[in-house]
């Protein structure tokens, strides 16, 4: 009896030791994952893309109920302010109609001036419409998941816009999914112009609802209400997408409120500006007919 008791005690001690060891192993494994993630960013990005592609069907499946819930909540909120909202929209509509007239006139004028000066326009942008199937908004990330990917022509670095303005850029692309990094994310740096003064600046996110404007040439004459647009420098971004407006100017820090309303995004458009497509297209276009003709000749 005593021997068996001893044996059991020893056995349980061994088991406890093994289990302690197991915890240590798990902790080491977790640290190992973090180190690998730091060392091999390509591998991690591939893993991320794989995880996104796997999760995206599940998210599509729950997208409808989630959208319904969101709509119900938004309805409840808007119901309270229906009358004011209506009045505001009517006023805005009137103002926009005036703008539309102005825009038409300017467009005509622009076209005529371009004809006069032989101005060559940049590559034509095309749009890919996408539904937001997932938020990757946490305390540390500001982003979203789209239901389009490489198969639809989405590529890393493309601009993502809403009706109001720029939302962000594509950070990762899977076959049928893509991750947008919003301009408000702490990792977002965007070359922009102050529309009125044409001053260049960098617009940086810091995970808060507003953006930080870092001017490259001193703080000369930026005022509240100035519109900030993309400058198109260094990337596949088109020029002149509205990003936000200056809401606060102060000692060295200028805050910008983005036009895009990140709290109620449902559909966005990915802008395929074709900068990468232009390079690839240039060599691909002549190659295809040549290949086709040789193929016919050999037969």
């Amino acid at each position, binding site marked *: 009896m005593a021997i068996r008791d001893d044996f059991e005690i020893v056995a349980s001690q061994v088991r406890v030791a093994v289990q302690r060891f197991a915890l240590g192993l798990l902790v080491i494994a977790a640290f190992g*994952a973090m180190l690998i993630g730091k060392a091999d960013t390509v591998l991690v990005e591939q893993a991320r893309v794989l995880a996104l592609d796997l999760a995206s069907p599940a998210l599509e499946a729950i997208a409808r109920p989630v959208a319904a819930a969101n709509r119900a909540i938004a309805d409840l909120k808007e119901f309270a302010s229906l009358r004011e909202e209506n009045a505001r929209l009517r006023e805005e509509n009137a103002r926009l109609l005036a703008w539309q007239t102005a825009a038409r006139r300017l467009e005509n004028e622009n076209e005529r001036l371009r004809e006069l000066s032989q101005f060559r326009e940049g590559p034509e942008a095309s749009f890919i419409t996408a539904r937001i199937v997932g938020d990757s908004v946490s*305390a540390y990330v500001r982003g979203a998941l789209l239901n389009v990917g490489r198969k639809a022509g989405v590529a890393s670095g493309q601009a993502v816009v809403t009706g109001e303005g720029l939302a962000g850029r594509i*950070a990762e692309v899977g076959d049928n999914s893509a991750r947008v990094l919003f301009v408000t994310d*702490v990792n977002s740096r965007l070359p922009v112009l102050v529309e009125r003064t044409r001053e260049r600046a960098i617009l940086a996110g810091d995970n808060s609802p507003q953006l930080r404007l870092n001017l490259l040439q001193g703080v000369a004459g930026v005022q509240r209400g100035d519109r900030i647009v993309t400058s198109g420098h260094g990337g596949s971004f088109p020029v002149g997408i509205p990003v936000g407006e200056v809401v606060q100017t102060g000692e060295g820090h200028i805050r910008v409120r983005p036009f895009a309303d990140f709290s109620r995004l449902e559909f966005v458009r990915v802008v395929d500006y074709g900068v990468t497509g232009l390079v690839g297209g240039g060599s691909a276009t002549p190659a295809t007919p040549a290949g086709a003709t040789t193929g016919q000749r050999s037969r």
Partner: protein
Amino acid sequence: MRADGLLAMLDRWGRLILPGAVLLFFVVLTLAPLRVPYLSDALPLLPALVVFQFSLATPERLPGPLLLVMGVLLDLLLGGPGAPVGVSALGFVLIRAQVVANRRYLVGVPFLFQWIGFCLLAAGFVLLVWVFTAIFTWTALDPMPATVQYLVVIVVYPLLAPLLARVRPRDPLNVPELSRGTARPGETTS
């Protein structure tokens, strides 16, 4: 010892995989574009809540390696560029180890004590993720969103925990430790 009919087998399998499945569901739900004010902030912490709650009663059904995989998956799905992959895994494993080590104070006690236990462990989890993310991205992260996230999740806990507890009410293992049979005193399977 146990009936070996088909239903019994299904029952056993169902019970076996249920905690893992619920955890996976909440990991995926983290990405759902839910726009409920405040609640959507807390979504990324709900998997940690699930780990805590299931570790209370049936830790053997959330084995450490599974937590590791789920944590890495959560980080992959959630993380932006530069964020550490595996920090949630570390957090999950530590939560489970702490719950198992402190069963005496957490199992079979009034709900309030479990809540306090969760508050402490969730604080540790949030702090861990915050510190590691700050180190890995080398930026002074604003602690405010993380604090809001934490406050929301500890308010959500009393709403969600009873629901999760109902997921396993007729589990024969869900009885105080002495009459359990499978888990021996002092056993801390990791």
